[in-house]
Every structure is written in structure tokens, then in C-alpha cells.
């Protein structure tokens, strides 16, 4: 299975650059998720890998071999599209048979492979049904079988779960990944859903405006974001703007000032110079709350306190929304804490310093940086 290298890809459609100096290496046999909002250029990236789009600049390499201009049919990179694109006039069996037949494999081999693929995706019972007779999940599995039966080395998955119901999506994440992993293909999965990427990927590449912003393991991308965008896109974050304060061995301090008050928060160590304008991002799941008793003279533990606006029971977790002088702050807590918080409580907010990332204020402004779509 090849290692895929994208080297400085540029692709413009009309005035917009769908790829703008995109570079990325996908390791042999790896399951890589390209994660980004709609319009960030993820699909274009996939199309350049399989040859459906030719980059204006840059190169696509398979195991070091330049394939930038090689025809689609010779790249052995099968695509699983988000609408599945099962051929409507063919049965499940004939759909899976499509690739072996067009490539004129010996009939017995072809039959055997097709049968084993159909079995693997649990579609034996529906082999002679037409796509329109299948449910969404069954169509998705058929499309997977068809892609896997093509003897491709690379599997490209273009938002393969988007069209399915939320609950079904959860089930299919596990199933899809394990089937693909079993085949050992180099797989590139494009998605806008960070939970999906976290759960499925070996590594995640976060893409934005036609460029890869960060590549790393799910944990790395989640815990050590390189930009405020990544911090807020891969898991919600509370964002504060302030001025860099002193730095210590174990942590640093940032002064947050709003119209009504000023307070100091702790964050992880950085090299950013004291006095610079910075952004602090803390995952809502790492944001901790301490209830302030009404008769307490002074809040101690937290960085800032606020009034609980509402508590939402969301299943395994609860979300507490708190009105603070620095704006709305959310905290995601385990559901056993549900009884601890009620609306109109006053709570003090804090977090572990290493849970807070610090960034310089981006040149285009924070609002543009944090835009989700």
C-alpha cells in the first residue's frame, strides 16, 4: 500500500482557492481523517489524490512516484462518495462486480472476491436487491464493498456517514473503521464531524482555507491545538482575550479584562512575551466549577465567578452555561454532577493550567479565526 505525499498543491476554481499550498503525507496503511468545515477544500484535496481534479501547481506522489497527471482509472484509489452513487440499474451483486468486470479479471476469481466482500459487509441477504430497495446504512455498506472489491491500494472516503441518522452513524463509525483496517488499505476519510474524526482516525489533519493547519493523533490535536481555530473546532472551547502576564516554570498567567472587571487566569507555559495580546482557549470539558455559597465573603479558588444561566442534561454529560463579566462560559461535566448545579447559582470558574492553551491574537482578527463555516 502506498505512502501518499501531497506537495504544495494549489487549485483554484474561479476566484476561490480550494487548495492553497496544501502539503500532507499519508503513511502506508494509515487511517487518516481530513477534518474541516464546509468549503475548507477537503473534497478538492480528495479529488486531487484520485485524479478527478488536476492541481494547478504542486505534485501528488504515490510512494515517491509522481502521479499528478496519471488518469483516474490507473491510480488504484477507490472513492466512496457521500451519496454512495450506487449504480441504480444494477443489483448489489452487480454493483460490487462492477470493478472486477471492467478490469476483466478471470471470472472465477472475480466471483469469489465479490462474494467475500458482500459477506464481509453483511449484505448476503440483499445481494439481488436494487439500491433503491436498501436503507441508508445498507447502501453505505454496499458502496464500501464495491470500493474494496476493486483491488485498490488507497481508499478515499468522502463524508461517508453524512447522509445517515445520528444514532446509526455512531454504530457505523466502529464498523466502518474496523472493516477498512482489516483490509490494510491506506485510507483517507474526509469529514466535518470532529467526534467522528476523533473516534475513527489514526491521525487527524485539520484543514482550513485550502491548507493543512495541524496534523497529529486525535489526542494531540485535541489537547495541543496549534491555533485558536483548532482549539475551538476540535471540541468546543471557552475563549478569552487578554494580555500575557508572567511565566513560571509550571504555568503562565494571562490578564483578562472586560468592561466590568479584570481577572487573571492560569494557562500552560509559553514563550510568548509578556504584554502581548493573547487568546486563551480552554475546552469546555476541562472547565471546572466550584459552587460559591451565598454567605461566602470572597471567592477564592476560581479565576472568575458568574451566575448559572441554565443547566442542560445531555445524557452522559451535562452542560452548564454561566453568565460572567467576560461573556458566556460553558462547562461540560459528568452527569453525576447534575444535582450540584441549578440556575441562578453563583459559581466560580477555574481549570488546570495545562488545560488552557495560549495563542497570539491572529493577524486577521479573532472573529475570522473562529468562524466555523
Amino acid at each position, binding site marked *: 500500500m502506498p505512502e501518499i505525499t501531497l506537495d504544495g498543491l494549489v487549485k483554484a476554481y*474561479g476566484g476561490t482557492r480550494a487548495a492553497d499550498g496544501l502539503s500532507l503525507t499519508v503513511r502506508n496503511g494509515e487511517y487518516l481523517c481530513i477534518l474541516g468545515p464546509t468549503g475548507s477544500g477537503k473534497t478538492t484535496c480528495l479529488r486531487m489524490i484520485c*485524479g478527478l481534479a488536476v492541481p494547478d501547481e504542486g505534485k501528488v506522489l504515490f510512494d515517491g512516484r509522481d502521479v499528478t497527471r496519471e488518469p483516474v*482509472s*490507473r491510480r488504484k484509489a477507490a472513492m466512496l462518495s457521500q451519496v454512495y452513487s450506487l449504480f441504480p*440499474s444494477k443489483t448489489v451483486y452487480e454493483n460490487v462486480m462492477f470493478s472486477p468486470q*471492467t478490469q476483466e479479471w478471470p471470472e472465477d476469481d472475480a466471483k469469489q472476491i465479490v462474494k467475500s466482500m458482500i459477506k464481509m459487509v453483511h449484505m448476503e441477504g440483499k445481494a439481488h436487491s436494487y439500491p433503491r430497495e436498501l436503507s441508508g446504512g445498507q447502501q453505505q455498506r454496499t458502496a464500501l464493498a464495491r*470500493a474494496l472489491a476493486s483491488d485498490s491500494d488507497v481508499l478515499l472516503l468522502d463524508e461517508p456517514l453524512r447522509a445517515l441518522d445520528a444514532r446509526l452513524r455512531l454504530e457505523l463509525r466502529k464498523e466502518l473503521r474496523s472493516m477498512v483496517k482489516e483490509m490494510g488499505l491506506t485510507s483517507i476519510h474526509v469529514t466535518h464531524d470532529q467526534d467522528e474524526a476523533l473516534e475513527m482516525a489514526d491521525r487527524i489533519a485539520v484543514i482550513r482555507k485550502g491548507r493543512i493547519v495541524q496534523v497529529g493523533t486525535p489526542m494531540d490535536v485535541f489537547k495541543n491545538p496549534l491555533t485558536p481555530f483548532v482549539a475551538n473546532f476540535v471540541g468546543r472551547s471557552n475563549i478569552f482575550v487578554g494580555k500575557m502576564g508572567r511565566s513560571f516554570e509550571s504555568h503562565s498567567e494571562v490578564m483578562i479584562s472586560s468592561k466590568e472587571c479584570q481577572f487573571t487566569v492560569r494557562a500552560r507555559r509559553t514563550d510568548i512575551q509578556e504584554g502581548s495580546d493573547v487568546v486563551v482557549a480552554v475546552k469546555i470539558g476541562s472547565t471546572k466549577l466550584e459552587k460559591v455559597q451565598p454567605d461566602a465573603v470572597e471567592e477564592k479558588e476560581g479565576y472568575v465567578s458568574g451566575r448559572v444561566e441554565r443547566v442542560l442534561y445531555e445524557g452522559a454529560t451535562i452542560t452548564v452555561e454561566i453568565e460572567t463579566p467576560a461573556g458566556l462560559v460553558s462547562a461540560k461535566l459528568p452527569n453525576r454532577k447534575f444535582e450540584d448545579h441549578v440556575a441562578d447559582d453563583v459559581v466560580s470558574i477555574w481549570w488546570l493550567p495545562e488545560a488552557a492553551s495560549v495563542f497570539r491574537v491572529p493577524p486577521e482578527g479573532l472573529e475570522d479565526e473562529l468562524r466555523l463555516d
Partner: protein
Amino acid sequence: MSLLKKINDLSDSGRSRRAWFGLVCMVFLVLIIIPSIFVVFKMFSDWSSVNDVIADGAMMDTIKGALANSFSIAFIVTIVDILVGIPMAWMLVRKQFRGKRYLDTLMDMPLAFPTAVLGISVVMFWGAPEGIDIPGLGLNISPYLMLVLLHFIFTYPYMVRSLSAILEQIEPNYETAAMTLSASRFTAVRTITLPLFRAGLVTGFILCFARSLSETGGTYIALKMMGVQSSFFTGPTFINDAKSLFGADAAMGPMILISVLMILLALALLIVARFMMVRLKIPVSRVWPQIGRKLSRGTVPKVKDVLSIAFLVLIVLIPSFYIFAFLTQPMADVDYGALLHSIGVSFLVAGAAVVFDIVFGIPMALYIARNRRTFLGKVLDEAVNVPLIIPTTALGFSLALFWGMFYGGGSAAVFTAMVILGHISFTYPLVVRNIIGAVEEVDASYEEVAMTLGAKPFQAFSKVLVPIIKSSIIAGAILSFTRSLGETGATTSISGSVKTVPVYIMDLVNRNSYAEAAMCSIILIVICFVLIFAVRMMMNRGERSA
């Protein structure tokens, strides 16, 4: 088999794909576009003969009168078509009712009738032509009004079809959304759906206008049956009759002039219509909630539905089928030899044209559908419309002049070939338009996925796309086959010696053999229906087994 493999392999190279597409464009340009408008160049090279005509006051008056008749009839017919077509398209697309399928089929029936036949049938129904014993309504209608009534029949289905095609693409949720916001249905339609409808209106307008402008056979027959064929002209009947009225040489100047004028006016119209599409604003700023509500409920919508069905039945269907009244008469003698010969010629011409259309039309349609945004895509998209808007009689005349340069005298085979080329010109856009519509409905991802699975581009096309759009290809083929079968003007203006069925029927009418003409018409219609029915059956069976 090895040829197929060769094509598959060739299709993998971008260069050979471009070469093939270049050929398709060349064919389109050389065989279709240039001959169609050649007469315009001819006018300048042969200016003296035209100049003579311009000096001839009486002749100019006749030409002006013919043009005025043609364009005003086309205009009136199209406007009325829009007015009665919108409610009908609405009913067919948005409403569910029993018998909808039959209404849908009835709608298309007049398209299978050669217009020459419609000419006979309509005059029989409304008037009381001499030499026919079957009683009609016997109204004393002016030739002008009679032509308007006749032209409704073959333009109306085009209008309803193009309106419903657009209506189907308009999200029905827009109307529902407007109604949840307290707009009555009438207001919702007027302020939301109609403004989105513009594109459909313009397409329908162009199609109907061009169809009415082109029509020769039925028009000529209607005028002949009313006995005014040499005093009342439309553009096409003038070209059709000029040679016999003025003699071959004297007719040349007037024919060139009127052809050029018709072509230029029609093209100007195409451009204006496109321009209008962008500019046309349907006033939406005022609302009258009370009136809107009254118009949306109770009797008004019902009356509207009843009226549009009544129009279809009384103005379109009954007059078309009235020719079958001849079956109540004793059988007329039919010269079966001549009839069969003309049917053979018709089928040869129509068949050859359809095959050509499909071979060269599909690649063109594919390119246009998939490259809508590129410059070449836009240009081709417009260029394909050109032969559609040019009146077929003028087109045929132009074509005859063009090919006449190469084959002066010409044998029967050459004339037949020229007629085929003529028929290709005006059927090609029909096929291309139909397939563009179908391809645009199909997500490009089908072919793309097929290619990532190792299929060559030609395999992706033939094994994946074709099965999906097969029914549209066949529908386009039927449409252009019947259109070719019914065409008179283009045939006669290319050569008087190629006797297709409509031309043969026209000859019979000229000889006042109405009964025989009617019998031939009925035989032709029956053959057409059987054919269409057989193709549809085959398609259905194919789909069921697939």
C-alpha cells in the same frame, strides 16, 4: 470487442478525448450551423436580385404582409399558450388526481400528428371547406384566426412540457414556507414561484414561437382548403409557393430576402428573450391579502382547472382527432404504392436524422451539461438553439443554396441526402436539449466513482451513465423522429422531388383529393402511435427485467 477495448483505452488519454470532442464541434459547425444561416451570406453575394425585390413595391407589400402574419400569429399563439399552459403545467406537476397519467399522455398526442394532417383536421372541424362532406362546426372564420387555432395545437404541448420541466425543479417547500408565513396560495405563487419561473417561461416562449414561425405544411393546407393560398401568406407558405407563383428565377430574390429577414428577426428575438430573462421583473412588492385569499379558495381554483382542461379538449384534442371522422365515410381509394413509397422516404429521412442526432448529440450534450460555467460551454449552449429558432423553411432554403454550390444538378440520392441534412439541423437541438436535461439530473459522482474503481472514461460513460439516461435518450429520439416525420417546409424548400408523407399529403390536397389525403393521414398516425407504443413497451419491459 477489440474495437471497444481500443475505444476504452483511447478514452483514457486526454488528448484523444479532446480530439473527438473537436470533431463533434466541427460536425456541428459545418453540417448544421453554417448551412442553416448560409442564405445570409448569399444575400450579400447576390445583392442585385434582392435589390430588384426591394424596388418592387407590390412584392415588398406581400413580403411584409407575410412576415407580419407569421410573427403576429406566433406572438398571439405563444402568449395564449403561456396563459393556459401555466395552470395545466401546475396541475400535472403539483397535483395528484386520478387519471393524471392519461392526461399526461393525451398532452403529447398532437406531437405525433404531422402538421399537414392537423391542417386538414382543423379546417374540417371549425369551418366547412368545399369538397368535404363531413359536417364541421361550419363557422365562418377568417384565415388569420384559423391559423391561430391551428398553431395552438402543435405549440401547446411544447409550452406545457417546458413549463412543467421547470416547475418540477422549483422546490415545493418555497410555496409551503410562504404559506406558513400567512401568504395565501395565490400570493405565494405570485411572489415566490413565478419570479423563479422566468427561465422556464423564456424557454417555452422561444420553443413555441419558433415552432409556430416554422410551420409550413399545415398552414399551407389550411389556407388551400379555405381557398386563400394565393392571397394570404405567412413567411413559410410564401417560400413554399414562390416558385410556382413567380417561376424559379423570379422567385429567387424574394425567397432570399424573406428567408434572411425571418432568420435575422428570429435570432434577434432569441437574443431579446435571453435579455428579458435577466431583466424581466414580476412585480412582487404589493400584496392584496383579501383578494389573494378569495382567488386561492373555493370556486376560483376549480374554475381555473376546468377551463384549462376544457381548452385542451376543445381547442387541442378534438380538432386534432376530427380527421378520424373520415372513417365514417365510405373508404376512399388510396394509391398504396405511392403512399408506401413516401412512408419509406419519410422513415429513411427521420431514421437517418435520429441516428446522426444521437451519435453526435450525446457528446455535445455531455459537454454542455458538465461545463455549464466555462465560456465554450455557454457558447455551445446558445449555438445549439440557433437551428431551433430559425424557421425550418428558411433553413431548408438556406441549406439547399449551400449544398447546391457543391452539387449543382443533383440526383435523387443527393436530394435525399440534403433533406436528411436539413432534418438533422432542426432535430439535433431537440435531442441535445433533452439529453442535457437528463445528464444534469444525474450526479457526476456516478461516473467519477466508476473511474476511481478502475473504469476508463468510455466505460464509465457506456456502463454507468447510459443505463441511467437511457429513457431520456429514447424520449429524445422519439421526439425528433416524430418531428422529422411531420415536417413539410424544410423538405419542400430543399427539393420538390423528395416526397415524404406530409409532402405527399399536401400534393393530394392540392389535387383536391381530400378523402385520400385523410386516409393517408390516418394510416400515418396509426403507424406513428403503434411505433411509439412499441418503443415505450420495450422500454418498460427492459426496466422491469433490469
